[in-house]
């Protein structure tokens, strides 16, 4: 063991990164798949945001799709009706979603657990109603067309789908890195402490309110980044980009991938999107199959694919390392568990 320089974590991350980097090369002009990948990557960035608040502090924010929609519409409206360039609009989108999240957090985070989930669900729905009904500003259901591509300043041409894909990928890697860094840092431990028990965390001197609020603001910022990119990728956006359904889709991505893990959001997003596309051939009947698949996944792999595999391989390793000491699992993989589901991993 001591001689291993082999680090499966690094290798795994590298493989996922490589797969994503090389994907466009293997497609040979299949722009449809590239599009699914690009859109998937923007969703995955938002899912990383959800991961921050849900995976690390245990609070389920159902306003996530709403904040994504705010990002979409700020970029959409500024680059068309107000003829701004993409980058400044994008910056505004990021700032507004971040600050908006911080301010909304002041009220929202007074509630906890189910109440927080339902509160944010209402918040998300109100955002959707405003976008779909405030016709004079958002054009309501007519949507916004002609959203600008990012400016490449002569270096890049982002209207080229492959280039746009790599730009989104860059942000996705950034999101993954931030998650990784937060998990390793003191903030990450603080957040996990809050998830385990707020009272306990408070008693050891953690400023629970502020930390949760920062996590919430960070999560909405991710949603804003994702939304801004999504608008540019699509070119046309409508109110469905802010709908509650989108929030539930993201929740599905993260649960399938693995809550609180670094790779979970990417794996979950691409896997579920792939399933959706695959079952398209069943047209209206695809939900007869997809519905039960979702239920089965939640029941039998509640920690998500990444979490499940972690625990599985961890168990093998601890057995190989010599049973007896009883806590052979890698120290970190506990954080991929959902709070109440601990027994199995030990």
């Amino acid at each position, binding site marked *: 063991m001591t001689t291993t320089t082999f680090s499966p974590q690094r290798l795994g991350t590298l493989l996922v990164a490589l797969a994503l980097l090389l994907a466009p090369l293997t497609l040979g002009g299949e722009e449809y798949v590239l599009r699914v990948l690009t859109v998937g990557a923007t969703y995955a960035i938002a899912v990383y945001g959800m991961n921050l608040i849900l995976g690390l502090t245990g609070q389920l924010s159902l306003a996530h799709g709403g904040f994504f929609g705010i990002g979409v519409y700020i970029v959409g409206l500024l680059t068309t009706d107000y003829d701004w360039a993409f980058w400044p609009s994008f910056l505004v989108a990021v700032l507004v979603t971040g600050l908006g999240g911080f301010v909304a957090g002041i009220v929202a985070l007074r509630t906890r657990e189910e109440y927080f989930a339902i509160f944010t669900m209402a918040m998300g729905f109100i955002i959707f109603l405003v976008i779909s009904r405030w016709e004079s500003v958002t054009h309501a259901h007519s949507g916004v067309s002609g959203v600008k591509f990012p400016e490449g300043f002569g270096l890049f041409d982002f209207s080229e789908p492959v280039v746009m894909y790599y730009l989104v990928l860059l942000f996705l890697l950034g999101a993954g890195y931030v998650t990784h860094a937060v998990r390793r840092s003191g903030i990450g431990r603080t957040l996990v402490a809050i998830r385990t028990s707020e009272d306990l965390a408070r008693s050891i001197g953690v400023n629970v309110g502020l930390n949760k609020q920062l996590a919430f603001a960070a999560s909405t910022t991710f949603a804003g980044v994702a939304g801004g990119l999504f608008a540019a990728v699509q070119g046309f956006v409508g109110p469905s980009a802010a709908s509650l359904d989108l929030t539930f889709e993201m929740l599905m991505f993260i649960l399938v991938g693995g809550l609180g893990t670094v790779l979970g959001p990417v794996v979950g997003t691409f896997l579920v999107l792939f399933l959706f596309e695959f079952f398209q051939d069943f047209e209206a009947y695809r939900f007869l199959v997809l519905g039960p698949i979702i239920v089965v996944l939640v029941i039998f792999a509640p920690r998500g694919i990444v979490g499940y595999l972690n625990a599985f391989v*961890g168990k093998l390793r601890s057995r190989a390392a010599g049973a007896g000491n009883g806590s052979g699992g890698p120290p970190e993989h506990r954080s991929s568990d959902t709070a109440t589901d601990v027994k199995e991993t030990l």
Partner: protein
Amino acid sequence: MAPMRIRPGATVTAAACAGALLATSACGGGAGSGSDTIVIGYSGPLSGGAAVYGKNIQDGLQLAIDDLNERGVTVDGEEYRVELQSLDDQYAPDAAATNAQRLAEQDDAAVVFIPHAGGIQAAQELNSSRTEFLLGAYSSDPKIVEQGNELTMMIPPSFKSYAEPFVDKLTQNGESKLGLLGTSSEYGQEWTKLVTEEWKSRGGQVLSDNSIDYATVSDFAGPVSRTLADNPDVIFLGGPSQPTAVIIEEARRQGYEGSFLLMDQAKFEEMEEFTDPENLNNAIGVKPVRDYDDPGTDDLLDAYAEKVTKKQPVTSEVALNYQSAAIVVTAMQQAGSIDDSAAIREAIPDAIGEVDEHFHVSGFPTEITDAGHLRNKDLEAAYRTPEGEYEYLPIEQPDE
């Protein structure tokens, strides 16, 4: 101990992820790309709240394709079978665009039909720059041809052409107060705006806007009594036919005796099935398909009853898409190509005159404008008199 802090599962996961990616790309070149097949693509709402609408259009396209195959399709000397490839987008613009791209690239569809303005605009962002396909656009919202997309074919009449004659007809006896009770969908909002402007331009009074989402309201009585409280002479309403019929019935029950101005989404022939037809007296709307006497109308009604359902009437959604599928395939024959979408678009003006009369069912187009709008010069609206008879009046279409 640093190497201990690892997540061994990551390797396996990465492999799984890469596998998924490969599988995604591998599913390319799937169904229907055989050399002797013409694939017509369709992306519409096949599940969710607008599924009936999506299904009607799918049925129209499929019936046309069946008839075309029966007659034999020859392009540039070679025989082809036409096939419809449908994907569900649940009315979402981004899903429609993704589907359109998938249909164009993987199924080699040169023509993709989309029946909602949002999806059409999202797809226009694609076919103007990247993937080439001709967009069969079924939406009566004129902005879909106002943006200069060269590969769009707008199928139904623009709703703008209805407002003026409808208002003309219903203000003949000095009616001055208009109540608004339309659906609050994309379409409904545009219509409400249009009718409001038209009504005001004649000095009429427009009462409070009681637009509601027909899909989510549990009880229509409230909105109806609000509208009636202002004593309107004419009520504008409309959305899917069935809830529209229920709202009309409720208004009559509450004692309303004025007239109804119906947006084109609601169809007389469908509403008659849902409420006592007498409730619909004194209303203006689009002409029922069954009342056309074009050469193919009866055959289509029979085919629909036999192959699709006897329980529902044929609506213009079925009929207009039936016609346009025939136009598109004829245009392929004229152009001598099944995959050059630009050539197919260019051949449409010639193709219109060449389509077999069997496919003329409900006001077959007589021209296509430069912007890509299929139009019939003799468009008519239907007015149901207070006695329950239908009268037809010509509609003048604005220049584009």
